[in-house]
Structure formats: structure tokens, C-alpha cells
């Protein structure tokens, strides 16, 4: 009888151990994720096992390792995506590193000073992929994601860069998202992204003018004049929108406008 009790006790202890082992294995399975590899031009600021992959402030993954590619000498990030979040990563997902930016032109991502740099991701439905190419800069602020996108043809891009403000009555309504030369290389095509909220500001007859920097007209006789728009446009450049007739048909994504020259702009302002 004592033998039986001992056997039973051993059996109970072992059963507890088995349950423990199974639950541990299950927890491991649930917490384990899918590994992905992202190549970047520069991974300064990322820390293995500490930096995270975030989407809208929610952690979807963790960076496991940073390594240099043997052939191309570009850095690779090995990251593990949480099992639960794996379905938001598709093969067209974009990854970019979010760093705090504190310059004369803008103050952005200050939260990253405390949390450390992290990788942000755009969710895409689609089949999963293991390797990605990271972006060098953020793909235009997310707030302009759904908004209008129009192209401005200009003879020069002086003072304008990606991220320059688009202003309407000195209120920012969008920003420059992309710049390229036209096919015949005679013009610069500036693609601007308008905030969804201000889509109706852009009409078919809208005019765009470059207000980057400041303009000085110095006359020997008759007085000189210096016009300056704002410090921000002085440093980061800007485009202003003038819509003379708010009843005109609204512009559509893909419409092309021609940038006014400075003389045309002044004429418009004086009229």
C-alpha cells in the first residue's frame, strides 16, 4: 500500500511537471514571431534586443540583430514580428527609421528621444515576405496619406525640398512629397501632398508660387524692398497656393499646374 501511495505521488509530481512543460512550450509558441530582414543605408541609433518596430505607437516587433552584408557592405536589420501582428506585414510594407529631428526647419518625433530610435512600418495586406528594403526617409507624414496629390511644373526648384510646406493664406495645408525632373529635363515636377481636410482649397484655377527664401528688389532710386514670408519658409522652403475663385471645379489627384514666376506672383498679389 505504501508503495502504491509513493507511485501515485510520483505520478502526480510528474503530471504537474508535464503540464508545466506543455504550458511553457505553448507560451513560447505564442510569443515567438516571424523573422524578417530589412536592409537600410544607415542603422545608427538602433540597438539589438531593445529597439522596436512600431505601427501607430503599438509595438509589432523587435530588432534582434544588426549586421553588415558581406558583399554590399550595407547594414541588415534582423527583426522578429510578433505572431499576432504578422498579418499586417505584407511584401509591399515599407519600413523606415524614426529619429528625432530637431532642426531649424522642423521639430519632429521628439518622442523618440526618450524611447530611442525605432522602425516604423506601413501595414499592407498581402502575402508575407522575409526580406525588405528599408526607406531612407519617412514616406511623407501619414496625415497626408489620403489627401490630394497634384503636380506642379516649375522651371526651377530653388529653395524647395521634400518636406517643404504648402501654404494657403499662410496656413500649412500640405507638403512637398516628391521632386523629379520632367522627361524632357526642361522642368522640375514637384509633387505636393495636400492634407485631406484642405482638399477643396485646390481648384482647377489655383495658382502656385515659390516663396522660399526672401526676395529683395534693390533699386538705386525709388526705394528698395525686401519681402520675407516666414522663418520656416526661409529655411525649409515653401509653396503658396492662391485660389482666386472658390467656385471653380475642385482639382483631382494627378492634375498638373504651372508654377508662377516671381513677377507673375507679385502681379497677382497687387491686383
Amino acid at each position, binding site marked *: 500500500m505504501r508503495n502504491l501511495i509513493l*507511485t501515485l505521488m*510520483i505520478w502526480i*509530481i*510528474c503530471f504537474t511537471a*508535464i503540464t508545466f*512543460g506543455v504550458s511553457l512550450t505553448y507560451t513560447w509558441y505564442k510569443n515567438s514571431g516571424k523573422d524578417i530582414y530589412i536592409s537600410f543605408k544607415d542603422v545608427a541609433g538602433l*540597438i539589438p534586443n531593445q529597439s522596436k518596430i512600431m505601427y501607430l505607437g503599438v509595438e509589432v516587433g523587435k530588432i534582434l540583430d544588426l549586421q553588415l552584408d558581406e558583399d554590399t557592405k550595407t547594414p541588415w536589420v534582423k527583426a522578429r514580428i510578433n505572431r499576432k501582428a504578422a498579418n499586417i506585414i505584407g511584401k509591399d510594407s515599407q519600413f523606415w527609421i524614426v529619429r528625432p529631428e530637431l532642426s531649424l526647419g522642423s521639430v519632429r518625433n521628439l518622442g523618440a528621444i526618450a524611447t530611442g530610435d525605432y522602425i516604423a512600418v506601413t501595414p499592407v495586406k498581402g502575402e508575407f515576405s522575409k526580406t525588405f528594403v528599408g526607406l531612407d526617409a519617412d514616406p511623407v507624414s501619414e496625415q497626408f496619406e489620403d489627401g490630394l496629390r497634384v503636380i506642379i511644373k516649375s522651371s526651377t526648384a530653388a529653395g524647395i525640398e521634400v518636406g517643404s510646406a504648402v501654404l494657403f493664406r499662410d496656413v500649412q495645408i500640405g507638403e512637398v512629397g516628391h521632386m523629379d525632373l520632367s522627361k524632357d529635363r526642361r522642368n522640375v515636377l514637384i509633387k505636393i501632398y495636400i492634407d485631406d481636410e484642405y482638399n477643396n482649397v485646390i481648384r482647377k484655377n489655383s495658382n502656385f508660387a515659390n516663396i522660399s527664401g526672401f526676395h529683395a528688389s534693390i533699386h538705386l532710386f525709388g526705394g528698395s524692398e525686401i519681402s520675407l514670408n516666414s522663418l520656416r519658409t526661409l529655411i525649409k522652403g515653401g509653396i503658396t497656393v492662391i485660389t482666386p475663385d472658390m467656385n471653380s471645379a475642385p482639382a483631382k489627384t494627378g492634375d498638373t499646374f504651372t508654377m508662377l514666376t516671381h513677377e507673375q506672383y507679385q502681379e497677382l498679389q497687387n491686383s
Partner: protein
Amino acid sequence: MKIDISNTDHYLVRALSFTVAAIFLYIPANLYPFMTMKYAGQYQKTTIWDGIKSLYEGGMWGTATIVFMASIIIPVFKLLSLFFIITTEYFNIAFNTRTSLLALVDFIGRWSMLDVFLVSIMVGLIKFGDFATVSADIASYLLGVVVIFTMLASASLSECHEEESIP
């Protein structure tokens, strides 16, 4: 009510429960980190396989082989042998093979604690306060329990074996 079970059956059931429990604990022991290294504010958790890999990549292939033997080959071999012994005991076949295998399992039993020793040595050696510390993690406890369970299983089997060979 009188339940009549022979002593050998008792020992066999005990050995079987210990072996099965050891297998179920050995699986998470390989998945979870067995050591946490804290170094200059960052901490790194190492699983057994990671440890072997980094030892090998660091050029210490001798140590890597020993750890690989001690924490992967020997436990797996031991668990398989225990199963083999229990099965042959149950069907009462292959008596001689069983005897020598049991002696072998008993002999290597003391060596399978090697990585638990390794962690305890590391924990003892590397203590620089907040700057660098090493601490044992869940998998090392699991491994310790696995070793104890396999030793208990082989002890039960030995008793069973003795009882069988006496008459």
C-alpha cells in the same frame, strides 16, 4: 479492496512517469534562455543553442563541442535509452543489452549536469555590480529538473532490474 501490483510494475510506472516528465521539460528547456547577461545596461538572453553557436563562432569549438555533447547529445541519448529500457523491461526481452545500457545511463548521468555547472560558474565569476552580471534563467532550472528526473528514472529502473534478477 486490495490492489495487487507487483513491485517491478511500481518501479516501471515510476520510471516511465519520470522519463515522460523529463521529455516534456526538456522541450521548453531548449526554447527558453538559460542565461541572462547584463552588460553595460543592455541585457542579452541566451538559449542553449545560441550559446553553442556563439562559442563556435568565437573560435572555441572545443568548448562548443563539450557543451553540445553535455546539453543536447547526452540528454537525448539518455531519454531514448530510458525509453528503450522501459519497453524491454515491460516485454522482458533483451536482458543483457538492457543491463549494460542501464549501467551506461547511470555512468553518464553525472555528466549531464555540465551546463548547469557552467551557468553556476559564470554566475559566480561575473559579478561587477551594475556593470556586468550573469544570472541563471528559466531553462537552466528546467535542465536541472530534467537531470534529476532522469536520474530518478534510472534509479527506479535499477531497483526494478535488481528485483528481477534476484529470483
